[in-house]
């Protein structure tokens, strides 16, 4: 029994890589105006960390060749025929996404708190009364809210500095205890390196956080906009 592991969707292409993950064959499955690129496997392998990054490398190659829509890692398909049907069923949505993302790249910014709140700081000892608990939580919530405000302000500042279009940026403030801000910027392929350099300078100037700028990568974070029509 063979299965297909999907990597990316592109417009119809006349050529491209022929080797997928772990040296296995890479299938180029035509469906209407689009191609789906997938590795053909025997049986049901357990995917490894190396596979995830090989998937990334493959998408990067496809992105370099033209507009490319990354598929979520771990998307298994039964066979060519069902892959074709899935693509044709939502042809317009996928084609629009491929065209909108075009040959854009993603630049990622992560800001870490230099003074990350310690787990003990949340105070989980039993409070002496219900009222004392609420008063304690009020104080703790004020700290959390303040951090979130700072994070949102950092986001607004970076967005202004890096002069990006509202539609081409995603962010999450305080996604976890140690991370102040997680931000993704979409840039034209030929402008992505320059954006990364500007972002590195901007991030280095911010006090109280450690900033890491990554990419340019295929535009993984910008495929989610497609999903808001609720699917099935």
């Amino acid at each position, binding site marked *: 029994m063979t299965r297909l592991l999907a990597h990316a969707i592109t417009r119809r292409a006349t050529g491209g890589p022929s080797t997928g993950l772990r040296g296995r064959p890479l299938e180029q499955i035509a469906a209407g105006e689009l191609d789906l690129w997938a590795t053909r496997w025997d049986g049901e392998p357990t*995917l490894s960390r190396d596979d995830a990054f090989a998937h990334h490398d493959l998408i990067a190659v496809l992105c370099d060749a033209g507009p490319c829509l990354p598929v979520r890692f771990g998307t298994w398909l039964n066979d060519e025929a069902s892959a074709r049907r899935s693509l044709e069923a939502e042809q317009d949505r996928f084609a629009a996404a491929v065209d909108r993302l075009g040959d854009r790249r993603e630049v990622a910014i992560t800001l870490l708190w230099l003074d990350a709140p310690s787990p003990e700081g949340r105070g989980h000892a039993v409070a002496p009364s219900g009222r004392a608990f609420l008063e304690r939580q009020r104080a703790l919530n004020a700290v959390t809210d303040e951090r979130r405000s700072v994070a949102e302000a950092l986001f607004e500042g970076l967005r202004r500095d890096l002069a990006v279009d509202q539609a081409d940026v995603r962010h*999450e403030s305080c996604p976890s205890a140690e*991370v102040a801000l997680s931000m993704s910027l979409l840039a034209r392929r030929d402008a992505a390196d320059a954006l990364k350099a500007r972002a590195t300078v901007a991030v280095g100037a911010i006090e109280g956080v450690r900033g890491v700028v990554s990419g340019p990568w295929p535009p993984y974070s910008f495929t989610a906009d497609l999903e808001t029509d609720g699917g099935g």
Partner: protein
Amino acid sequence: MEDEIGTLRRELERVRGVLPDRVDVDPEGVEQGLAKLVLTLVEFLRQLLERQAIRRMDGGTLTDDEIERVGLALMRLEAKVRELAEAFGLDPDDLNLGLGPIGKLL
């Protein structure tokens, strides 16, 4: 025994919190994935209720007795959520859907 991708997902909890974008349907992961979803939702609701209670306490619209009862109930609920999270191998501090903009408006 957890596979590499499962291990990677757990490492990522420190970057983006506990709520996964998807729950693997493989039998070994599904229990913990569902636990994360349920506990994150419960904690989210608990925080909403807690903020409401604090606002009403500050606004003087709760009696002393109500403050005490609500406070104790929310405290016990928080402890229970933490206990359940730990039982599923989750870090309770990362059960963070985050109130986001909603938090500021409440």
